């Protein structure tokens, strides 16, 4: 047992860190530090910078434009990226649909879609959830009926993150309503957002932002060649997809960056005559959070090390620990930031590009309450924390 990185790993970390320092546009970095939303263009710009370096999808196999990094290197890359802080490559493309396509798709799909995903020529969104199918995803109702060389799709998806920017949506659709189990009648379909019959309604989130949407399908004609893998096997691909994010789900890099930010801000912000960081109550809360975060980082590294010995299509149920604890810690960092900002959490400044007026109160304070509100989502989406605990109880504890 040696918990330190090897000299090679440290050299790799330094290389990655230097690349981010030199190539991440300052305007994007600033937006992330302040907790602001970045634009579609920001994301495309950043993905193309990564792609030019060959790092847009480092976890993909080399033959599809990935790297041969081992899980520890993958981990280092991701954590350095989040800590930079740089935008995470749009997960819907590189982490979700990409791996499904290269694992289960046909040659034509691989040739066409994979390079476009890496270069962000297509913006992808995820069409799984429906109004009646949240935690119980398998009860989804959106229907796809085969007619000749097309599917006709009718139904509704919801909570579609950044669907307003999307060129393509990957959907779970019901192709066999009469299957003996509801999981058995589902297929994985790629749908062009420009197809006639697709409409989108934005849903404003509680922080005032626009990041989720409802998407309606009204007799949408989808070429049958956009089916991934076999008909009615979509649930297997979805499970593969959902389990795929295991190394990144805890977002430790983001939390580390936030902890550093908390320390910086609390050193500058006065509470009474002294900086807030000298307030015993505050500093002890921060220290306690750092302990949780360090423990999670070590847990994450154990999962990463273990991943070297696991087949890649068998996700580790311990990733549920990472999801639960990681989301709780992310939420706790936003709560501590609320404590730092104090009364100036109150003003609401709409985020508009090109606004000239100075913000109300300190610039750094603007997004703190919105980020706190918005971060409630992380214990709800991607399998809620209640669902994750059910998984631990069943799959690990045998209850």
């Amino acid at each position: 047992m040696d918990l330190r990185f090897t000299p090679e790993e440290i050299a790799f970390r330094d290389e990655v860190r230097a690349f981010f320092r030199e190539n991440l546009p300052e305007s994007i970095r600033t937006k992330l530090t302040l907790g602001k939303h970045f634009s579609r263009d920001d994301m495309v710009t950043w993905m193309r910078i990564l792609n030019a370096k060959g790092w847009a999808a480092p976890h993909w196999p080399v033959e599809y434009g990935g790297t041969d990094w081992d899980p520890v290197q993958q981990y280092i890359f991701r954590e350095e990226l989040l800590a930079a802080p740089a935008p995470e490559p749009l997960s819907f493309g590189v982490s979700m649909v990409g791996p499904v396509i290269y694992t289960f798709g046909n040659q034509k799909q691989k040739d066409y879609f994979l390079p476009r995903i890496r270069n962000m020529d297509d913006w992808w969104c995820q069409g799984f959830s429906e109004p009646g199918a949240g935690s119980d995803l398998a009860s989804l109702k959106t229907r796809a009926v085969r007619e000749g060389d097309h599917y006709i799709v009718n139904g509704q998806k919801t909570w579609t993150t950044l669907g307003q920017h999307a060129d393509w949506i990957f959907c779970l659709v019901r192709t066999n309503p009469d299957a003996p189990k509801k999981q058995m009648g589902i297929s994985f379909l790629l749908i062009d957002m420009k197809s006639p019959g697709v409409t989108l309604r934005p849903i404003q989130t509680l922080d005032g932002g626009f990041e989720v949407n409802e998407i309606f399908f009204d007799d949408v004609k989808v070429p049958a060649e956009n089916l991934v893998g076999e008909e009615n096997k979509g649930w297997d691909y979805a499970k593969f997809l959902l389990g795929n994010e295991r190394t990144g789900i805890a977002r430790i890099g983001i939390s580390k960056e936030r902890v550093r930010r908390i320390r910086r801000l609390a050193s500058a912000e006065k509470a009474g005559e002294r900086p807030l960081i000298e307030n015993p109550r505050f500093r002890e809360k921060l220290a306690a959070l750092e302990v949780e975060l360090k423990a999670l980082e070590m847990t994450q590294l154990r999962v990463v090390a273990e991943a070297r010995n696991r087949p890649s299509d068998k996700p580790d149920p311990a990733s549920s620990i990472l999801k639960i604890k990681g989301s709780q810690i992310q939420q706790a960092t936003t709560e501590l930031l609320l404590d730092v900002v104090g009364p100036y959490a109150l003003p609401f400044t709409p985020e508009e590009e090109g606004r000239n007026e100075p913000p109300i109160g300190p610039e750094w304070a603007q997004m703190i309450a919105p980020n706190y509100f918005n971060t409630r989502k992380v214990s709800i989406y991607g399998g809620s924390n209640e669902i994750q605990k059910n998984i631990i109880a069943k799959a690990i504890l045998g209850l």
Partner: protein
Amino acid sequence: MDFDLNDEQRMLKDSVEKLLGARYDFDTRRRISDSPEGFDREIWSAFAEMGLLALPFSEDDGGMGGGPVETMIVMEAFGRALVVEPFLASVILAGGILRRAGSSGQRAEHIAAIAGGEKLYAFAHHERQARYDLHDVATMARADGEHYVISGEKGLVLSGDSADRLIVSARTSGNQRDEAGISLFLVDAKAEGVSRRGYATQDGARGAEVTFDNVRIPASALIGTRDEAFPVIARVIEEAIAALCAESVGVMADMHEATIDYMKVRNQFGTHIGSFQVLQHAAADMFIALEQARSMAMFASMMVQEEDARERARAIAAAKVQIGNSCRFVGQNAVQLHGGVAVTMEYKVAHSFKRATMIEKLFGDTDHYTTRLADLGGVIGE
């Protein structure tokens, strides 16, 4: 010992709830909050007609002679409906200052204007550097013959952008962080040298940053005794905290009920989610947190009239800590138990959660009052 309301109080509760039930549903509230002024003058008139704006003032001042329990009843109902009208700013804060420190002439003029709903008042006290310290006042009022000249910057003036008149705290002697040397003045919001920048707040209400640039006012605009305003300010903030505690109980009770209702109708895995024991326990914990907050809101209403300043301060600090903790717990769980729907602007719980979050921040957060209570020797006593 009697926790029950008397007949008149029950009538007050019924009539406020009825008015809000009829005229302040969630969609109306959203529309009002999104309107340019951020509140509704017609509703404000309706409050005035019902006597709500006259409630805490003595009958001698033309008020209804209500006490903290009456305020509690109104604020709890306002919390349920997420009322954004400037009741706290105009009636509780500015009205509280005038009621406690105004001369008979000032009371006759200004309390009548507040109670009748004709004019709106706001309390311009907070300053950016002060954080939660009420005595940290840098704004200066310089005596100049029969006048004072006020200069300085005030922030987070609740409902300050539509106020007709401002009550401003300013230093007439001493250093920035001295309790002594602070005075209160009545300033017309449109006076020369007053500039305001209004904004929406995170919880859908309004606030303003107000700059005073050599604002000249007559000496008669002084409220109360020169240099000795601090105890008045502290007292009125205590009353505002007691009112906020009651409001938070309304906000939390509404979120809790919405959550229970939702658990009965939302189906996943072939059954209503209320059948999952883990969610039942979370809802039970929310209920406990709500009832603990309700108890402390009652305690705050009772103790806000206590004449022993130290006892009163302990009680208010304890109440603020309890509601802060409960607001956080109930708010976060209400969102969690709803899943995705409660992270959208389209659903009331999201707005209640934001209000609950901001209530925790107003006039001093949980950490601030925990430390303060510890310094005061706790709330149980020897």
